[in-house]
Structure formats: structure tokens, C-alpha cells
């Protein structure tokens, strides 16, 4: 620097002055743009897809707002929902990828630790004898059980879905009727959404090479049917319906119970509402 001649320094100074001017203008522009951008990139964005209706002409997605309820006090852990989901949606027939699953929480007498497992646990797979059918092994038959319950889990179809926020292509989106879907023809398979989901509801489908998750059986509900898991549940532990209809099963479920959502602190505003879960369920 010390060897620079005076004209060179003057030129540099002039350049820096110009640069400063340009930076000020750019700064002002960025500041103005930020006011518009900040609300749009925040996790609170309403990321509903555009388009008049989808997928059929006689279905208007602006007229519905789907919701799901889980009454954990009723679940018996029969896992028919898991099997029905796998068959209905061609979910890979293995024991480590699920669109829905059931968790078992067991407190044993004199043991402070809660024991949690799901149908994918190797002990349970050994009991079912296959990775295509599922059952809970009777692994606590010799222990004194203090308290136990089952919790069905699935995608929460959040109002502010972090998976949608991070998707680089917009292949995953939230429909106007409140369902979070993946466009398998547009997903690039980066799996950022899998990382971003706080609930572990997403997986990478090794057959299609795209992100996969529960759709609340969108192909069924847009035809007036219920999701497969709700349809097969023998005890009515899974409740589904239109939150815009005050007499739908889900509206009644929410009105007649004190419901809660999972990991509320994440700010995702889930649309799966739970009754009868314990403090350690997340």
C-alpha cells in the first residue's frame, strides 16, 4: 500500500466514493424490499397453492378445511390403520418408512423411565413375522404395568408447515382445503423437508426417489370418502372431517373435548388434534 502513487490513491478514493454511493442506493432498495419480503419468508406464511380447484371439477377446495382428531384413550394398538395406509397408498413395504404409525407408552411399576416403542421396533417385527403386517409384541407380559397407552401419529398438515417453507422448488405445498401434499413429478429429492419436519412424518421413498408423507388420502377425501386409516379403525380412535362444517365429526371432537397439538412450541399450528395423551408424548 505504501508504494501506491498519489494518482492511484486518488482513483481508488474516487472509486470508493462511487462504491459508497452505489451501496447507499442498494441499501435503500434492499431495505424497502425487505419490508415486502420479511412477511413472505417468515414461517408464518400462509403457503396455500393457487389454482381454481383440484383435482376434480366438481370438488371446490375453497369450501373445505380438513382436520384430523386422535382419541388416544380409544386406541387399542391393533395397527390396522398402519396396514391400511400402506396398502391404500403404496407405501414401501418395509419396516422403517411409514405415513402413519402407532406409538406405545408403557410405565412399569417402580420404574421411572417410560418405555416407548412403535410397530417398526425389531421385537415387534419379529412378533409379526413380516415387514408387511404389523403387531405389537406382548413384551411386557411378565412385568407389572403401571400405566400404558397407544398414540397414533401421522402428518399434522400444519397451518404453517416447515416442510413447505424449506422446499426449494415448491414441490410440496399446502392446498386451499388445508392438506400438505408433495408433487412427485416436481420434487427433486433433496430431503430438506424431511429434516425440517419436527414430527418425523416425512420419509424419502426409495422407489420413487421423492419425499413422501401422509396425504390424509387426498384421493379419497376429495370424493367424499374418509382416509383409509379412519375407515378401518375399529374403535373410532381416528376422527376426520371438515372444520368448516360445525356438525362434522372433527368439529364435534374439537368442541366436545379439550384438545391439544404436538410440539406447539414449534409454531407450526398442527391440524391433528389429540385427546388423552400424556406429558411425554411429543
Amino acid at each position, binding site marked *: 500500500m505504501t508504494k501506491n502513487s498519489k494518482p492511484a490513491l486518488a482513483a481508488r478514493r474516487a472509486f470508493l466514493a462511487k462504491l459508497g454511493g452505489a451501496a447507499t442506493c442498494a441499501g435503500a432498495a434492499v431495505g424497502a424490499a425487505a419490508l415486502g419480503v420479511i412477511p*413472505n419468508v417468515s414461517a408464518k406464511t400462509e403457503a396455500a397453492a393457487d389454482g381454481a380447484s383440484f383435482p376434480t371439477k366438481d370438488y371446490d377446495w375453497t369450501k373445505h378445511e380438513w382436520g384430523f382428531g386422535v382419541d388416544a384413550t380409544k386406541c387399542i394398538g391393533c395397527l390396522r390403520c398402519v396396514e391400511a395406509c400402506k396398502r391404500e397408498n403404496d407405501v414401501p413395504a418395509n419396516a422403517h418408512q411409514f405415513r402413519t404409525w402407532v406409538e406405545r407408552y408403557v410405565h412399569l411399576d417402580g420404574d421411572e423411565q417410560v418405555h416407548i416403542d412403535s410397530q417398526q421396533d425389531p421385537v415387534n417385527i419379529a412378533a409379526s413375522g413380516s415387514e408387511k403386517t404389523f403387531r405389537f409384541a406382548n413384551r411386557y407380559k411378565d412385568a407389572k404395568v403401571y400405566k400404558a397407552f397407544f398414540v397414533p401419529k401421522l402428518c399434522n398438515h400444519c397451518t404453517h408447515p416447515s416442510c413447505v417453507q424449506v422446499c*426449494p422448488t415448491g414441490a410440496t405445498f399446502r392446498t386451499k382445503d388445508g392438506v400438505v401434499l408433495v408433487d412427485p413429478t416436481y420434487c427433486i*429429492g433433496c430431503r430438506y423437508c424431511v429434516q425440517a419436519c419436527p414430527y418425523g412424518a416425512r420419509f424419502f421413498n426409495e422407489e420413487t426417489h421423492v419425499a413422501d408423507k401422509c396425504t390424509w388420502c387426498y384421493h379419497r377425501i376429495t370424493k367424499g370418502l374418509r382416509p383409509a386409516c379412519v375407515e378401518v379403525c375399529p374403535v373410532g380412535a381416528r376422527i376426520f372431517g371438515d372444520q368448516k362444517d360445525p356438525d362434522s365429526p372433527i368439529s364435534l371432537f374439537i368442541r366436545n373435548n379439550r384438545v391439544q397439538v404436538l410440539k406447539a412450541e414449534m409454531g407450526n399450528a398442527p391440524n391433528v388434534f389429540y385427546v388423552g395423551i400424556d406429558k411425554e408424548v411429543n
Partner: protein
Amino acid sequence: MEPILHLAPYTGWVYPNETVFEWSILIAVYPYITGLVAGAFTVSSLYQVFGFERLKPVAHLALLTSLSFMIFVPMPLLLHLGHPERAFNAVLTPHLTSAMAMFGFFASFYVVLLIIETWFANRPFIVAQAQQRSDLLGRFYRLLTLGSDDVSEYAMRFDKKWIFALAVIGIPAAHGLHGYVGFMYGSVKAREWWSSDLMAVIFLFSAIISGVSLLVVLYVASCKLRRVPIDVACVKGLAYTIWGFIMVALVLEGLEFASMIYKGVEGVDMIIQYVTGPLLIPYFVLQIGIGAVTPLLWLSYMIWRGSSGKALVVGVTVCASLVLFSVFMMRWNVVIGGQEISKTGKGLLSYQLPFFGKEGALMAIVLILAPIAVLFGLTRLFPPWADGAAHTQA
């Protein structure tokens, strides 16, 4: 809790879908390479913009290094994508709320900037070659002159202005690119180990020390290969740079860790169990102890004692190698470590690194070494050497 063997062995309670690791070693290689790009560019800028004359012998080499590594930045991502043929979807129809969507634009902008700056920096050489050579390579250089063979003093001054301006723009571009990579992890609220405001800054500082260290190793190796004396003042300048930035990097890393443990929110029990168990060696011993504290102490000792000559060169080169290793371990501990802690906060998983395959250890090694092969080729075409150049001026 009994360990249960599965795709990824785990203990405790993890969500069923978590038993498959979705981000492999390649996603650790990606920020590593990006960091080397940003760090190498820092060295080039220290000379071009901030006038650190003693770094002149490595200034052009830094630029070529940055370019060589930048070419390979998209590779680990493309190899990892489920549908690499759709990669351009993220650029053609970017989803503006996604931290990842803008990557294509930032990266492309930066590559173009690097190419233009490299062109300006090498223009006198390109013009000379174009005029001297009549072979095929001569034709190549003639093409590269882009029709401009003016190397008059006026033209050179003009070029210098451009190099300065590009270097000035390049500093926020390179660091923005890498800071953004850190943000991609830091903004994932679902993972306690990633979700941190400091993540982007930690990535940035570790990037700088890794890039400077790479330059030390490359410069010393290139001098040995070309059998020319090593410019000790230059090596010392690089050593000071590492020394200064490594302290910041260590403090930031410490603050991040301390605040996580001190706040002790839900799930911290699992993190404590993790860092004192499976992470003890990769994090505390390899990344922090051997990779960062050892070089910091060694460099401090050499600066204190005023080491010079061979002792300094050997010491700094070993320290630089350790830092390169440490920063890779940092990327590993973030990317793989983050996934080893279950989102349930009640279980730990264990990543099984395959050696072969699209996302195996061998591929990771190839991806880290490939830019050096490209750099070797580029130094043949555009020799960046400035032997015995500058330190006397410093």
C-alpha cells in the same frame, strides 16, 4: 437401554422414519468445499482489497483454488438428489421461502464473478501466450483474450480497477454464500443441534480458517514440487490469519455449545448424553482438541518465540493440516451429529458410513481431492506463481 440393530442402529425412542439417515457424508462434504472456496477467496481479497502485500505469492493461487473448488460445489448435492435431472427446478421456479432455493443463484453469480476476476488477473499472461504460441494451445489463449490484446499501462490500470471492484463484491458474495450454507442448518428448528442463530457465523469463521489453511498446504506443496524457495513471510502472514480467525471460531463454537447446555431446554439430556458419549471423540478430541486447540497453541508458541525458516514452515503446514481436518470434523459433527440426535429428544441414532457407493466414504474423498486435480491443470494453463515477489515490500 438396549441397542437395537436396524438400518441405523439406535438406542432409546426414535421416530420410525428417522431410522434412515437422509443426509449422508456428501452433505458434510458440501459445506466443507463451499467453506474452502470462501476461505481461499478471503486470502485473495486480503491482498487485492486490503493490500496485504506479503500474501502476494498466494494471491493468484488463492483465486484459482477458489475457482477449482467452486466448480465442485454442486457435485455432492447432485449426487445426493433423488432426481438430479430436476435440479434446475430450484432455479427455474425457485420457492422463495426456501433457504436452499436461492443457492443456484448465489452460486452462479459467484462462479461468474470468480471467472471474470480470474480472467482479469491472468490477462497479461493470456495475451502474451496468445502472441507467442502458434500451436493449439495458442489458439486456446487467443480465444481467451476475447479479442483484447491491449496490455498497455492504461489498460492494466483499467484491469486493476476491475479486479479491485470484483474482489470487493466478491467478499460479501463468498462469505454470503457460505454464511447462507450455515443458515440452511441453523434455520432448521426441528433439530436442536442445528437450530442456532450462531450457526451461520460459526460456519463462516470455520470456512475462513479452512481456506487459509488449504492455501498454506497448497503453497508449501507447490513450492516443493516446483523446487523453488518458500516465501517465509508469506507463510507467516497466512499463519497470523489462521491464528486470528481460529480464536474467533473457537470462541463462537464454545458460546454456541455453552448456551445450549446452559439454557437446558427440553431434550438437552439427550444432547448431554450424546456429546459425552458418541460425540466425545469426534467433537471434543478430534475437532476441538487436536484440530483447533493444538494448532492455536502451536501457532501462538511460534509467534511468541519468533520462529522462522524451516521450523516455521513445517509448524505452520502441520497446523494448517490439522485445521483442515478440524473443519471437516466440524461439518461432520454438524451434519451427521444433528441427525444422530433423534427429533423425539429421547433417543440416539448411529450413522453407518458405507465405503463404496454413490454416497460413500470413497466418493467423499474423491470429491475433496478432485478440485486439487483441476487446480493442478489450471495452474498449468494460468501459472499463478509470483516467485520472490512481494514480501520485501511489506
